């Protein structure tokens, strides 16, 4: 079942003929120069569930989240989306994995529809098996196509909203649907207005981002992500840049989305939100998952010392 069908069918992914796992990440590694930021992170995102990523600053939360939609390319590890693609990053980076690469191209080209960048994958298949330099080029193109395929299944809400400042609220929201997904303009506007109304911003459709409060900007950011009708919503500390009194309006929207059954991965420092909304909490430190579990258990009775110390620091910053 391809994503393009999801888009034409309705709001939420169909439940039939689907496994519970939407996204499986295995052994994700990433270095920036000498800085080994992710040292083999596993993640299992089940449909309709909310995963909270917590951890100290610099522990790699953002890097992990960005790896899930192709903004970051891991050095090693496997990302497996239900319905494809299966992206083996070691195979892309290294040499001598051509057989594996070919298999990936097959899986990818069925499911990358709707993406502009995925077009490179066929070319990649054609050039694979030629001389060394063209093999490397093919690997690079494949990496690009796979990143795009990952991206087309998810949508990201940024810490600093990253709204397009030269576009109105409505234009921000319909940009992806009309420009990329080829949704007719009238349909896209209709859906956008509906979504804006749902987050209480119907009257702001013609405002420019700079005319909104931080909380409103962030809610538009969420609507822009929802308008893409993704399978997976990614949030990177969406409230940490907000004034305290604006945090609630954004978290409320996110909680409603979770209740509606959206699949979400949320990097957050809002432990109370994680406790109430998340199905699973992952505590990341030093590039590894130190502890994972249901929020009730992880917060009230952490198994690891490092988790306990981190929670103490956040809950009792003055002690």
């Amino acid at each position, binding site marked *: 079942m391809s994503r393009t069908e999801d888009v034409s069918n309705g709001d939420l992914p169909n439940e039939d003929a689907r496994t519970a796992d939407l996204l499986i990440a295995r052994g994700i590694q990433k270095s920036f120069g000498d800085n080994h930021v992710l040292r083999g992170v596993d993640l299992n995102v089940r449909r309709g569930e909310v995963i909270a990523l917590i951890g100290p600053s610099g522990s790699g939360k953002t890097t992990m989240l960005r790896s899930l939609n192709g*903004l970051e390319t891991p050095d090693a590890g496997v990302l497996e989306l239900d319905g494809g693609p299966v992206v083996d990053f070691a195979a892309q980076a290294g040499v001598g994995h051509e057989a594996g690469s070919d298999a990936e191209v097959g899986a990818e080209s069925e499911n990358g529809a709707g993406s502009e960048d995925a077009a490179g994958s066929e070319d990649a298949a054609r050039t694979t098996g030629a001389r060394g330099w063209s093999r490397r080029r093919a690997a690079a193109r494949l990496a690009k196509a796979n990143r795009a395929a990952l991206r*087309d299944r998810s949508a990201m809400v940024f810490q600093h909203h990253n709204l397009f400042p030269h*576009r109105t609220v409505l234009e921000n929201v319909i940009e992806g649907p009309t420009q990329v997904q080829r949704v007719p303009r009238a349909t896209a506007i209709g859906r956008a207005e509906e979504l804006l109304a749902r987050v209480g911003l119907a009257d702001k459709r013609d405002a420019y981002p700079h005319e909104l409060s931080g909380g409103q900007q962030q809610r538009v950011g969420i609507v822009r992500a929802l308008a*893409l009708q993704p399978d997976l919503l990614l949030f990177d500390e969406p409230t940490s840049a907000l004034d305290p009194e604006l945090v609630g309006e954004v978290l409320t929207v996110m909680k409603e989305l979770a209740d509606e059954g959206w699949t979400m991965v949320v990097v957050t420092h809002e432990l109370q939100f994680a406790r109430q909304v998340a199905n699973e909490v992952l505590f990341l430190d030093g590039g590894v998952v130190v502890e994972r579990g249901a929020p009730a258990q992880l917060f009230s009775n952490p198994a690891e010392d490092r988790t306990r110390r981190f929670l103490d620091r956040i809950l009792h910053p003055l002690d």
Partner: protein
Amino acid sequence: MDWQLVADSFWPLLRGGLTGTIPLALVSFAFGLVLALVVALLRLSPNPALSWIGRAYVSAIRGTPLLVQLFIIFYGMPKLGIVFEPWPAAITAFSLNVGGYAAEVIRAAILSVPKGQWEAGWTVGMSPARTLGRIILPQAARVSVPPLSNTFISLVKDTSLATVILVTEMFRKAQEIAAFSNEFLLIYTEAALIYWMFCTVLATGQNAIEKRLDRYVAH
């Protein structure tokens, strides 16, 4: 002071400006901007060879006098079998020149757009080219209006160099009238005042464009 001569020469000079100087500057600037965008993108390319080509081009244009560039194209190129009429020669030289100077402006403007805008474009599914066209360049345009206006105003004045390759723009008209009447100070001063007038009008236009592009920016 010969007021009659001032009055008689004003319209020929102004006409020379409106039919020579201004069209020459406008056409050259339009071609030059397209070239400048290409050169800026070359410079920004992660491919070292492409980036080197862009850098070499900018360096060559900025490192040589415009007058020499004009001479090479008009007097030098025929040696290679490429013969230009005065107007095409002038447009070619000025476009190539603007291409070098404006490339740096455009490059800096593109780099001034926050990285998050590229990432947001990626996230909503756009290719880099589409993100550039729909998200990055409109924002870069705003930043680059003041420096590009400077480039354009310089160009308007530099078109007077075209007189040496026989293009009939305002300054050539001034030279003819001055030689004929022997009133060099008067006529050249008059020409200078008309250039000044043109540039003042252009600066006003720049303000209008900046205002228009400012509507989405917080103050």
